[in-house]
C-alpha cells in the first residue's frame, strides 16, 4: 500500500505549484491560459488542505477541498462565459486589450 510521504513534502509541492500558477497568471496574456493558471493555484491549495487534514487526522480538510472543487467548477463556467462574451466581439485574444479601467 502506498502511504503518504511526510507532510512537509506535500506542503512544499503545494507552495511550488502555487508559485508557478501565480507566475503564469502574470506572464501570459491569453485569457484562457490565465484561467488555467488559476486552476493550478486552486489545486495547490487543495493539496495543502488535504495534507493538513492527513497530518492532523481530521476530515475537515477534505471537506473543504471538496467545496473548493465545486466552487472552482462554478467559477470556470461563469468565467469562461465572460471570456467568450468579451472576446467574441474582438478579433484577438489579448487580455491587455481589456483596459477600459485605465486611469
Amino acid at each position, binding site marked *: 500500500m502506498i502511504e503518504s510521504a511526510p507532510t512537509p513534502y506535500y506542503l*512544499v509541492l503545494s507552495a*511550488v505549484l502555487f508559485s508557478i500558477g501565480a507566475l503564469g497568471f502574470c506572464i501570459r496574456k491569453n485569457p*484562457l491560459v490565465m484561467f488555467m493558471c488559476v*486552476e493550478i493555484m486552486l489545486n495547490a491549495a487543495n493539496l495543502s488542505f488535504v495534507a493538513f487534514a492527513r497530518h492532523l487526522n481530521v476530515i475537515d480538510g477534505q471537506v473543504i*477541498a471538496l467545496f473548493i472543487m465545486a466552487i472552482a467548477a462554478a467559477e470556470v463556467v461563469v468565467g469562461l462565459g465572460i471570456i467568450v462574451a468579451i472576446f467574441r466581439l474582438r478579433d484577438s485574444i489579448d487580455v491587455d486589450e481589456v483596459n477600459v479601467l485605465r486611469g
Partner: protein
Amino acid sequence: MSLSEVFFLIVAAIAIGSATLVITLPNTVHSALFLVATLFCVALMFLSMGAEFLAAVQILVYAGAIMILFLFVITLMNPQRPAGPDRLRSQVVWSCAFAVMLLLVLWISIQEGAMAALPIAPVSTTPLGLDALGIALFTTYVVPFEITSILLLVAMVGAVVLGRGRVQ
C-alpha cells in the same frame, strides 16, 4: 528512501514539470493538455494521502468536466488577427522575482516553525475514509453544502445568460 517517498518524488516532478509547461507553451491546446496532466498528478497525490473519494472527484470534475469545457472554448475562440507583441514584457522579471520571494517564504515557514508546532499524528493510523467524509459533509458542513448547490445553480443560470449574446 521508502517507496512512498519515491512515488511522491516522481509524481511531484511530473506535476511541477507539467505546470511549468502549462505556463510556457505558446499553443493554448498544448497548455490545456498539460494542465490535465497536472491535475492527474494532484489526484495521485490525493490517493497517496488516503483521500480516494477526492481523487476520484478530482479526475471526474476537474480533468473530466472542467478541462473539456476549456478545450471547447479554446476551439471556439479563433483569433483572426495574430497576437501582437506583449506590451508588458518587463513584467516577467518582476513576476519571477515575486514568485521566488513567495516560494522562499513558504519554504522557510514550512521548514522551521509551523510543522514543529503541530502535533505529529502517528503515520500508521488508518486514514479517514469516505464514510467520515460523508458524515461530516451532511452534518457539520450541511449549510455550506446547500449553499454550494445554490452556487452551482447560479453559475448555470449565469452561463446561460452570458452565452446568449445579444438580445434580438
